[in-house]
């Protein structure tokens, strides 16, 4: 079953499964917004330190000190702990000593520069430093082989904050517009049909469950649903 919707002056094809998914996730979001205050995750490094990393000598504490206070002592300690490991990774991947030395410079510079972006929600410091090392190594090797540079390591392994922000922004924009449109169409249905659409596509009930909930025979439910979908397709298609 396919429906054509106009969004942002663009035609979008979507089948009923997708439509129900959209309605459903938005309904869930509205529901969540009604029932509980909007929560922002505890991201402050202080909370995290007290809760999870009391040891001031841990890699995580040191990295946070580098990020929050530009603490050079902390960076020195991290450098001593990781530089040899970075070099070893370089040798394993590039088998080239000079490149591996350059990798130590590049990767540890990135650790210094990006430390303000690290927090405990990002996983262990080791894992974070490893991925930076891997990414710089990939870029260096590509440059050295004079390979096309249109795609960099940061495109291939996007950091979480990039990815989540971009996706959420796109999705909420998209779903917002889409739902406003669809909602408008649903409101034009007879009430009995609206109830059926709500049961199936917003509350995600099966036909049988919906029939019980509305206290109507299954056949009636199915025919109302068929009528509702036909009408929706008509409304949306001719908008």
């Amino acid at each position, binding site marked *: 079953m396919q429906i054509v919707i106009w969004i942002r002056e663009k035609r979008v094809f979507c089948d009923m499964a997708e439509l129900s998914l959209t309605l459903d996730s938005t309904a869930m979001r509205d529901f969540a917004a009604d029932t509980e205050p909007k929560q922002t995750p505890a991201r402050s490094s202080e909370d995290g330190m007290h809760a999870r990393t009391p040891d001031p000598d841990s890699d995580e504490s040191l990295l946070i000190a580098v990020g929050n206070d530009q603490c*050079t002592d902390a960076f020195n300690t991290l*450098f001593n702990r990781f530089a040899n490991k970075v*070099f070893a990774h370089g040798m394993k991947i590039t088998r080239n000593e000079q490149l591996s030395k350059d990798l130590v410079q590049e990767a*540890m510079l990135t650790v210094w*520069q990006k430390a303000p972006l690290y927090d405990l929600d990002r996983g262990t410091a*080791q894992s974070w430093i490893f*991925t930076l090392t*891997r990414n710089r190594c990939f870029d260096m090797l590509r440059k050295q*082989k004079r390979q096309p540079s249109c795609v960099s390591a940061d*495109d291939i392994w996007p950091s979480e904050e990039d990815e989540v922000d971009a996706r959420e922004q796109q999705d909420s924009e998209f779903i917002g517009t889409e739902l406003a449109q669809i909602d408008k169409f649903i409101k034009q249905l007879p009430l009995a049909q609206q109830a059926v659409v709500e049961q199936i596509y917003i509350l995600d009930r099966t036909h049988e469950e919906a029939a019980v909930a509305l206290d109507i025979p299954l056949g009636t439910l199915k025919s109302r649903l068929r009528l509702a979908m036909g009408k929706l397709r008509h409304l949306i298609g001719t908008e």
Partner: protein
Amino acid sequence: MNTEVNFHPSTELLQKFATGSLSGGMNVAISAHVELCKFCRQQTSEFEAKAAIDWLQMPTESDESDFSDLVAGIIKQPQIDSIGSNGSALNEIHMLDHSVRLPKVLAKAAAEGLVWKQLGGGINQAELSLDDETQCEFIYMKPGSQTPVHKHQGSEITLVLDGSFSDELGHYNPSDFIARSGSDVHQPRSEEGCLCFAVLDKPLTFTKGIARLLNPINNYRFRRSLARRAG
């Protein structure tokens, strides 16, 4: 996406992706799948964490490596406190009657523009240059297109981006990641049309020597393009 993802990269491929030991083209194909597939996204984070542990356990020769003179230069550099957005010009491919939103890494790879070539049989191809070891390209199969039966050479990765196609081994939907290596005989076909991204091993043996003499270049290229569809 409204369809369930049925075909994923192997564990081995995802582990190599996490450790950074694959070629550029392979990385791009897996990255694109990982953006579309929550399951593989979680797997990748786990493999990254595991790779970091393995990394730290790797023996290092501590004697000859003293890099401490680098520190002074590094700490003079400014730090970064926010990530700039690396927005890309192209993030959709416009098909005849609709647009397809590309995974970010593919949008970046295609940012300089795609040159589409018609290969006959309703198959269109746009090549991308991503590394020395693989051949990478977008493939568009028109609705109702079908390639001749052919034998598949070398290994090939196909990521479905839009529409669907089938071969003797299955039916493939958006986000499916299909790996073929070996000499299976295939006849891919697409009822509704299909946009894919494909990565092939460079078939070195076919670009040299007698095999090349036996195949006029165009014919060879055409067959390769068809072989590509085998994934």
